[in-house]
């Protein structure tokens, strides 16, 4: 009798074990072709879309970028060694996540040095603002950058700034600088954004390349794109003003209800193209992601002007006919295929030689821009041979705005 009861108990225990073993979701293996090491993240994350066409899950898998324990089916353990939490592109961990000579920390010549460039870029170092404010309050003798959001160096400097020490509020004594450190360091690439949907973005590469518009608070998004909408730029830009007087950030108070109002300059004037296009339709990679040098001011790196596309009264814009099938312009167009760019096509280039691959000069000589985000096709004209009398040396936007601003 006792033995029968015991046997029954054992059977129940065994059945429980069988039930428990069958209960967790069946493991879903994935062997990314890049790493060749099987990982089981898809067991839970099978519903995630490819993060981008350039990073298909079948090739990259998850662990190459995110880290984590590839074999663990326990969520806590699997996630315990992930890089940068949900965002492996945070600049603190970007090198192991996105780096590698075939990936984004490769040779300059191969145009694969994104990580090096971004880390020295003004959007990451915030060196311009830091230097300007410290200079304004007499803490440093000139506005040349000394400190950045983090320590960074540039062994082959062209700007005379070989390295930046980290800006450390603990070493500052001037009350305004201390206020600055409390109130004004929310917009560099490593900074957590201010609370509020309008500021909502990730850090690192994802700050720009992962659109966060309209996402629910803390909702994760698995997207990387080079078609960065102006709304993403607007999570930092056009959000208000930093006031030197009280060393505080004053958010804009108006209700933006249209493309034009999305831009924020109380006294600003804009031409049509500035609020029809997205920022990246004109502004280039080196302006946004840096050119590898450490700069002391945004003005040193931002160089695209009206004339870059429109030319001046004396000169047409610079063009280039694509001959090399490996041309960077073709690579960029392939990543964001809003136009079918081919060898033999003629595109505009900037005075620094950066391709404006979305702006073609057609066979009839006319110019045509395709919106990188909107995909709109927008023909436009040169300044040459028009009635414009603008001095070629005065091409900063505000000169053009005097005639071409749109009323608002």
């Amino acid at each position, binding site marked *: 009798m006792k033995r029968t009861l015991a046997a029954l108990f*054992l059977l129940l225990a065994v059945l429980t074990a069988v039930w*428990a*073993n069958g209960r967790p979701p069946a493991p879903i293996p994935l062997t990314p072709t890049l790493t060749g090491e099987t990982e089981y993240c898809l067991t839970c994350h099978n519903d995630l879309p490819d993060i981008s066409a350039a990073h298909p899950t079948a090739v990259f898998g998850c662990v190459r970028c995110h880290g984590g324990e590839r074999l*663990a089916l326990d969520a806590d*353990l699997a996630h*315990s*060694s992930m890089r940068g939490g949900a965002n492996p592109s945070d600049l603190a961990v970007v090198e192991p996540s996105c780096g590698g000579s075939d990936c984004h920390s490769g040779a300059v010549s191969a145009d694969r040095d994104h990580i090096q460039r971004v880390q020295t870029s003004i959007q990451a170092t915030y060196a311009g603002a830091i230097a300007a404010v410290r200079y304004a309050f007499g803490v440093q003798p000139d506005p040349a950058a000394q400190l950045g959001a983090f320590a960074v160096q540039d062994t082959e400097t062209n700007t005379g700034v070989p390295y930046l020490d980290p800006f450390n509020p603990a070493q500052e004594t001037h009350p305004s600088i201390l206020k600055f450190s409390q109130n004004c360091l929310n917009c560099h690439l490593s900074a957590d954004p201010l609370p509020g949907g309008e500021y909502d973005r990730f850090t690192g590469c994802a700050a720009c390349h992962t659109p966060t518009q309209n996402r629910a608070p803390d909702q994760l998004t698995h997207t990387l794109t080079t078609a960065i909408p102006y709304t993403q730029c607007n999570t930092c830009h056009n959000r208000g003003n930093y006031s030197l007087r009280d060393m505080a950030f004053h958010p804009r108070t108006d209700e933006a209800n249209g493309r034009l109002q999305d831009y924020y300059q109380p006294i600003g004037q804009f031409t049509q193209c500035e609020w029809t296009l997205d920022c990246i339709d004109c502004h280039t990679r080196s302006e946004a992601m840096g050119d590898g040098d450490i700069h002391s001011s945004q003005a040193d790196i931002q160089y695209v002007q009206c004339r870059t596309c429109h030319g001046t009264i004396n000169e047409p814009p610079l063009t280039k006919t694509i001959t090399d099938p490996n041309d960077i312009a073709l690579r960029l167009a392939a990543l964001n295929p809003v136009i079918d760019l081919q060898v033999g096509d003629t595109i505009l280039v900037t005075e620094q030689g950066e391709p404006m691959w979305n702006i073609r000069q057609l066979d009839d000589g006319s110019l045509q821009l395709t919106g990188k985000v909107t995909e709109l096709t927008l023909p436009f004209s040169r300044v040459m041979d028009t009635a414009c009398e603008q001095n070629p040396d005065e091409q900063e936007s505000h000169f053009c705005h005097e005639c071409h601003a749109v009323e608002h």
Partner: protein
Amino acid sequence: MSPSFFHHLHPPTIPKPQARFSHTLGAGGLAVFLSLTLLVTGALEMFYYVPTPDGAAESVQMLTFLVPYGGLVRNLHFWAAQGLLIVSIIHMVRVLLTGGYAAPRRFNYWLGLGLLALIIFLDFSGYVLRWDEGIRWALVAGTNLIKAIPGIGPGAYRILMGGDAPGPAALVRFYAWHIFGLILLFIIVGVWHIFRVRRDGGIAAPPPKLRQNRERLPRNELVRIEVVAMIVATAVLILISTFFPAPIGPAMSETAPPTAEARAPWFFLWVQQLLKNGDAFFWGVLIPLAVLGLLAALPLIRPSLAPEEIGSWLPKSGRVVQIATLGIILTLLILTLL
């Protein structure tokens, strides 16, 4: 019914009062059962475990999460090991509190103490085989204890670790000790221990003339009870292993930053607590050895037990031993929980 091999492992009859569960607590039998479970589940684990620094934690994860019933096997091995240590201690305390250590069983008590030490080493070496972040500092601090022994320390460390730091050689050595070296010793001493139990006349009981209750339990009944107990123990172990997974951590990493907290495995928490007092050799080696020595010395305490009191709980003539036992156990318990 003609007696089988298993019947032959038992004496034809044993004294009934001492065979009762309330007397033995079933601890010795349970220890045998758990040891066998460990051998079987350990053998199964060997089919997947990879004793290299790069492969160890991964293979443990594979076993735990991906191999069908692999997690169950690992949990069984883990819980059987923790259980073995606990029932061994219970067994020892029972022997000390019921006078089972008295002559002629003194030698067997020492064999048992040796088994306890082996079990602790087996437990620690098995714990280390995880080779994940969870065991890292226990491994570093635990092995550095050896280095702290004056004179022979550094040499002994190298003998144990095969290098100057935990690395591939150390892992393969822990593996060899865990799955073979220590097991070999454990089996030899264990069989010796069981042999001595019969040789010394079974579970300790007063000499026949002094017994009040002369009832005896025949071995076929004993075997039947053991079978039922084993079935129940298996079921309980399976249930525990199904619902309480063994600890596991991310693979040990060269680049991991220092942690703010590091805990020894539970059976060494008392040593970790002692070590907070200072000198590593004194608190980490001498004191634990002294505890072992104290336990070994208990059967030598005079006066020796009155024969008629052997085999019953808390015999009057063994008060000193009982107080010392409870004192040691309580102290260790408090240090562990601190």
